[in-house]
C-alpha cells in the first residue's frame, strides 16, 4: 500500500471513530489523545478497525507509535506484509 493510500485508510477509520474530526483540518502531527481527544475506548476502537481492515498486528506495546497520523502511517507502512 502506498503512503497516500495508507494515510487515507487511517484517516477514514479515525473519522469513523470520531465523526466530529474534519479530515480537511486534520494535521498529520495532531496528537490523537491530546489534540483530537480520543479516549481509551475511541483508541481501542480505532486499533480494532485498523486491524480488521489492514490485517496488521498491533500489540498494546505498539500503541505509543500510533500517537499521531504521521507516526501511525509510518508504523502501519513498516508493518504491512
Amino acid at each position, binding site marked *: 500500500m502506498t503512503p497516500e493510500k495508507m494515510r487515507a485508510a487511517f484517516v477514514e477509520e479515525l473519522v469513523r471513530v470520531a*465523526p466530529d474530526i474534519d479530515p480537511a483540518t486534520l494535521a498529520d502531527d495532531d496528537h490523537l489523545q491530546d489534540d483530537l481527544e480520543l479516549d*481509551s*475506548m475511541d483508541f*481501542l476502537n480505532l*486499533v*480494532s478497525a485498523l*486491524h*480488521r481492515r489492514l490485517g496488521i498486528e498491533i*500489540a*498494546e506495546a505498539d500503541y505509543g507509535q500510533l500517537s499521531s497520523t504521521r507516526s501511525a502511517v509510518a508504523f502501519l507502512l513498516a508493518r504491512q506484509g
Partner: protein
Amino acid sequence: MAVFKMPSLGADMETAKVVEWLVKPGDMVAHGQVVAVVETQKGAIEIECFEAGEVVRLDAKVGETLPVGAPLALIRAAGEAAPSKAKPRPAKARPSKAPPDSAQGQPPDAPPEIPTPPPEVPEVPREVPEQAPDEAPGTAPAEVPEPPPEVPGPTPPEVMRAVAPPPQGAGPPASPAARQRAAEAGVSLAAVVGTGPGGATLLGDVERHIGAAQAEPPAPPARPGKQGLDMAEMRKAIAAAMVRSKREIPHYYLSHQIDLQPATDWLAATNARRQPETRLLMGALLLRAAVLAATKSADLNGQFTDGAYRPSQAVHAGLVVALRGGGLIAPAIRDAETLALDALMEAMRDIVARARNGRLRNSELTEGTITISSMGETGAEALFGVIYPPQVALVGFGAPQRRPWVVGDTVEPRMILSATLSADHRISDGRRGARLLTEIERLLKEPESL
C-alpha cells in the same frame, strides 16, 4: 385506557422534542417496547412504552416539544373493551382502528376531549420502575379518571412546577376557548406556556404555540447524530441537575489510594493474548470492581425519591460518558452485577457508542442506582464527583499514576489509582462508605477473580 406520557429523561432534562413515532394507531405495543424517538439537549433518546395494548391515538405530533409528563398517546390495554363496545354508539361510530395513513396526523375524529382536562401530572415522583408494580392489563378501569401511568424515574416536584402550570383540579388552568382551540389543533395543553392569571393558558397562548410548532423545521433524519448538539443547552441541562444535587444532597467525600500494579500486569498479560476486538480496558476492570463492591453496599446503591431511600438489589451502573466536543451523560448499564468482565466490556463499548453516536433509551437515563466516573488513562489523579440525583453515591477513579509505593520494606515504583466516593450523608456515613473503597481495593488486588 391509559395515557402514555412523556417519561422522565433523567434529573437534568425537563422537555424533549418528538422526532419520530415508531407506532401508529391500531398497532399493538408490548411493555418496554420502543415507540418513539425524542430529541433532548443530550441527543436522541428512544422512548419505551410502559403500557401494553393497542395504540388508540397519538397525541404528540412530530416536531412538538413537550415537558416530562405530557400525554403522548392513548393505549388500550389488551382485553379492555373498545370504546365502541363500552359505550355503544350509532353506526357511524369511529372504527377502532384508524386508517394507517392518518397515523402521523390528527385522528380523523378526535374524541370529545374538550370537557376532560388532561390527567394531572403526578405531583410527586412515583416508585422507580423496577419496584413499581406493573399495572395488570385489563384491570384498569375503562372510564376516566384514568390512573396516572408510572413515570419511570422520579422528577422532582419543582421541575414539574417549572414546566407545567400549577394544577387546578384535574388539569392546568385554561380558558374554554384555549381548550377548544388546543383540541381542534391536536395540541396538548400541558405543552403550552400559559401567560394568563396564575399561569392559565389563554387562547393567544395556544395560537402562539401552534404557530411556533408549524414554524419549526421538518423532522430531522431518522438517526440524528450527536453532532450539532447545542452545547449551551447541554450545559444548562447539566447545571440544572448538578445545582439540584448540591442543594438537596449533603455530600461527603472519601479518597483511597490503591496499588493498581497487579491489575495493570494482569491486564497487559491478558491483552497480549488477544486481538484488539476482544481486548479489555482498565476502565472495565474498575467498573467491574465498583459494581461488585456496590452489591455489598445497600446504603450506596439505590435511589432516594419522594423523601425515602430505596436500596436496590440490582446494580444499574451509571457510567459517565464524556461526549466529544464537551458535555457528558451517564446512562446506566442495567444489572451490571450479572455481567462478567468480558460482557461488561461489551456493555461499556455499546453504551459509550450509543451515548455518542446513536440512541439511548429513557430507562437507561433514569434507572441508574450508582454512578461510576473514570478519568481514563491520562489526566488528573483524583476526581470528586457530584452525585446524580436520585442516586446517593458516585465512585470516582482518577487516572492511574506511576508513584513510589511501599512494598514490604522497600519502596518501588507502582501504578497507583486514587479511588474516591461521593456519597449522601442522609443515607450513609464515612465508615460505611469506606467499606466500598476498601472492597474495591481488595478486588483489584486479585484481578483474575474479577
